[in-house]
């Protein structure tokens, strides 16, 4: 969760890996490899290709080569935003990085609605997010309902809430096994178990043979 992603930010790299549909405006020599359906070496005008965001970012908004078309998902959400009914949208299903992806696309949107859409969507949903974080979370949470940022906010909310409850009940000072160690132990136990099964299996086979 990072509003100003740095160079090493893995999430930002994930977002910029997304593909965007672009229309080719001029003949681009020897760039046919970008178009899987093309049979010539050059990229002909009028074709549409899916280009990764990390390339589009490098282009000027009004470049002569490609016209970037805004993905459907933001147009669909637009309607819900107008009706103030965004809490039921399964954002995660629409796009796992709904907000961050939208932020990158804002300059290419000629109607200037994306910026407003992502702002309004978040504004309407954040209250709901707070509510489900407080109610323990696990039951209300569905993976597809939340986008990446929301899922992290939710996680942070649940964690803070449980810390608060710990503090109220004065159980906060108990020393716990560190999370990393716990995960490592679990993994080792799983590995041990599968080793046992691995040894167990051939012997039973031998018995049947």
């Amino acid at each position, binding site marked *: 969760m990072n509003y100003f992603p740095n*160079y*090493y*930010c*893995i999430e930002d*790299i*994930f977002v*910029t*890996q997304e593909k965007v549909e672009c229309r080719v405006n001029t003949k*681009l*020599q*020897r*760039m*046919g*490899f*970008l178009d*899987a359906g*093309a*049979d010539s*070496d050059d990229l002909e005008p009028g074709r549409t290709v899916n*280009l*990764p965001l*990390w*390339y589009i970012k*490098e*282009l000027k908004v009004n470049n002569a*080569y490609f016209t970037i078309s805004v993905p459907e998902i933001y147009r669909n959400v637009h309607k819900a935003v107008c009706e103030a009914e965004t809490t039921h949208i399964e954002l995660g299903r629409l796009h796992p990085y709904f907000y961050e992806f939208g932020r990158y696309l804002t300059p290419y949107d000629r109607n200037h609605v994306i910026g407003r859409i992502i702002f309004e969507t978040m504004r309407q949903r954040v209250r709901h997010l707070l509510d489900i974080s407080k109610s323990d979370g696990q039951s209300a949470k569905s993976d597809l309902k939340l986008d990446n940022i929301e899922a992290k906010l939710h996680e942070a909310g649940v964690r803070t809430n449980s810390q608060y409850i710990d503090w109220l009940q004065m*159980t*906060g*000072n*108990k*020393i*716990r*096994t*560190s*999370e*990393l*160690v*716990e*995960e*490592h*132990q679990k*993994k*080792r136990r799983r590995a041990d178990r599968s080793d046992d099964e691995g040894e167990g299996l051939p012997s039973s086979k031998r018995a049947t043979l």
Partner: protein
Amino acid sequence: MTRPNKLFGDKAFELLKELERSSQTIPAFDDDGVRQVLEEIKAIFEENVAQASTYNASGDRSLWPLLNYRHAALQRNKRCLLAYLYERSKRIKALRWEFGPIIPADIKQALCEPEVQFFNNYSKSLAAYMCSAGYSQGQGLDLTNHLRPPKSLYIEVRCMEDYGKFELEDGEVIHLKKNSQHYLPRAQVESLVRQGILQHLA
């Protein structure tokens, strides 16, 4: 040139995806993947250099978009690769705080030689700093200890595995056997609890 779906940068992205999938622990260092990305970078660079020189000579701008695309791909590969190494080094640093100065053997396997070196250096710097931090009292300050404010000096713990002998600061030696219960000074056993050898009983 018309190899199918050759967008560049996919291999580098795979590296990061693999790393991200194993949320916290460290997957094995992908020697092969890193080498492939480096090769791709080199190939792109050489093609671009060749084309840039003809561009300079002739001033023919028709290949400029291709040049630009490949340059972006090169930068992208570089970014992915650096992020891959950076994220791993971040997790290695976390290891020092969570597991203490010795990495479990199966995790160590996943690290490459420079990373082990990095861990040792990091461990050394941290130790040096911790020694200097409490210098006025004549002894160092263990920053990995006392992560939560203590309520009592002694705590009740149960041993989760056969650990063996453990010597307390006053010289008393206790045997930590599986499922045995002890009443020990909190400050001295905190790290053992953090490592999952002891369990703190309420």
